[in-house]
């Protein structure tokens, strides 16, 4: 019976993977779904290129190409246009188009205004990588992979909802809104991973307490040091008051890692107690710290590298634009650094909290004398 089930599981996985691959292919012909005008590059002709040197002595080159495109949807479907595209060797904001690329076009209604290429259509590549991730996940992890995916999807939906509420209230209740959201995230995720149990409640308590303590400590440090060196003005894409936004970003950013760690510690301690029912709460606490030792370093590094990698392009640009290391760091990396440090504090504090809660709240064998 079980063998038949496994058999079906494999076939179902293969079916999902095949259907997914067809889906990836379909994104090449989905122009009809777009409101923007989509066109396909049918021919390319290089015109000329000139070497350039900017005021910081950076040597680059500018190329000009004729791009022939054929419109795939909307009013101008079937029309071909020949457009001029200029790009640089470094391709910071422009790019070299190649035959077969699909692009978005802006076709103004006035006759004499120029038609421009607005950018590459990237959905096929994105769908391909998503498909590859999903296929590997299902092939190697089967059902557990599906659950992991489900929890991420549900969290994304919650996240989207919270942003809509935030916009509706003009960012006025950012702390309350995302504070509640953080708790909801934690409850939902841990419920999916652990099921509703005492283990889940202990983990939830540790997650919330660890993150909360980290925020309190950071706020104290912020007020003692008068936020010296924290350059909120360097924050990117800000449309609301930066400081609360930064704190909320930091809390959300570290939430997953703190949950990850608390789950590991609490699960191991519950298992330990199952194997040795006579273990004392103090011993449980000590074992918890021991488990935490080896988890915290790698976990802090995970977040650190994620936060810092995002600043790479801008930092490089600053350096090549004649700024010194100190200024470049302050303007680009200092916020990521503060974020990493606060997350690190949360990750470290969750260890004793999780161990202590587990050691006190674990179900004990009732020793009948």
């Amino acid at each position, binding site marked *: 019976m079980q063998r038949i089930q496994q058999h079906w599981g494999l076939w179902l996985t293969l079916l999902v993977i095949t259907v997914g691959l067809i889906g990836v292919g379909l994104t090449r012909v989905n122009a009809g779904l777009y409101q923007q005008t989509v066109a396909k590059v049918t021919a390319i002709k290089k015109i000329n290129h000139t070497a350039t040197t900017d005021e910081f002595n950076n040597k680059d080159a500018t190329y000009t190409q004729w791009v022939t495109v054929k419109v795939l949807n909307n009013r101008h479907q079937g029309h071909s246009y020949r457009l001029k595209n200029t790009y640089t060797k470094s391709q910071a904001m422009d790019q070299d188009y190649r035959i077969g690329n699909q692009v978005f076009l802006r076709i103004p209604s006035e006759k004499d205004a120029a038609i421009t290429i607005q950018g590459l259509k990237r959905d096929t590549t994105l769908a391909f990588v998503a498909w590859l991730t999903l296929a590997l996940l299902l092939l190697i*992890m089967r059902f557990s992979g599906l*659950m992991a995916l489900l929890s991420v999807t549900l969290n994304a939906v919650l996240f989207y909802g919270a942003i809509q509420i935030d916009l509706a209230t003009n960012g006025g209740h950012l702390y309350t809104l995302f504070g509640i959201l953080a708790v909801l995230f934690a409850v939902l995720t841990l419920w999916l991973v652990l099921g509703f149990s005492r283990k889940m409640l202990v983990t939830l308590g540790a997650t919330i307490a660890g993150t909360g303590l980290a925020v309190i400590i950071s706020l104290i440090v*912020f007020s003692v040091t008068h936020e010296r060196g924290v350059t909120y003005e360097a924050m990117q894409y800000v449309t609301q008051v930066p400081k609360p936004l930064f704190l909320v970003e930091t809390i959300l950013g570290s*939430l997953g890692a703190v949950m*990850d760690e608390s789950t590991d510690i609490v699960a191991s301690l519950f298992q330990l107690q199952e194997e040795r029912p006579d273990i004392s709460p103090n011993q449980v606490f000590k074992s918890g710290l021991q488990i935490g030792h080896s988890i915290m370093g*790698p*976990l802090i590094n995970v977040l650190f590298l994620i936060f810092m990698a995002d600043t*790479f392009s801008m930092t490089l640009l600053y350096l090549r634009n004649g700024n010194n290391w100190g200024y470049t760091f302050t303007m680009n990396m200092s916020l990521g650094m503060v974020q990493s440090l606060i997350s690190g504090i949360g990750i470290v504090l969750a260890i004793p909290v999780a161990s202590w809660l587990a050691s006190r709240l674990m179900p004990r064998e009732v020793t009948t004398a």
Partner: protein
Amino acid sequence: MSTITVLGLVLFALMTIIGGKTGATAFLSLIFNFALLFLSIVLISWGFPAMGVSLVIGTVILAFTIFFGEDNELAAKTAYIASLIIMVALILLIFPVEHWIMAQGFSLEDSEDLEGMSLTIGVSFVGVAVTEAILSTLGAIAEASIAIAAGLSEIIEQHPHVATKRLYIDGISIGKQIIGTTFNTLFFGFFGGFLALFIWFSGLHYSFGSVINNKIFVGEVLMVMFSLIGVILAVPITTWVMTLEHRRAAKLKD
């Protein structure tokens, strides 16, 4: 003192109090990793090829993260070899994908920050995007392979004659335990930091179609998915390396 210094001191103190010697070395690995990251940007800005820099720096970052955080020698060695294999596999994926999707450099949303800057700096931003993607996955790769290697080495310690096939089953089952929470670490780590951008997208009523083709969004989602793939690959690859190590150790004993 600046806020960063004080927060750093607080973190160092906490890691030392709670983690003892392991905690202190883990903090050191953080500082080394920062120095390496900064060094890699400086090297690229000096004109070194981005691929070479990410390969060399990546190898060193993995070593610092793994050997400074894990005490068990067998686990650390296995995790390191496995991480290197995964890194190379990911590079083979990241390189063509980044050249295909062209989500490098900056987007219109960055315009304000770019005011007065020269963009013609003669460094290929596609290469920089490759480096960014590779470096951002390293932490996740290291963490996953350490978790699996540590779990398996404990099993080997308790049952020194465990069969290879059994190790595979155990490796996958450890993987199943960590995959759910690791996914969430990555999801929150990447998207929590991009709250401002998502508010921007929603506030300016970007259509779904514009978002999934947006340079910044696509670049970020790719990084998450590369990390996820790294974590998924860590499960069979770390297990496989562990079986090789285990077999070799068994042979040495005979």
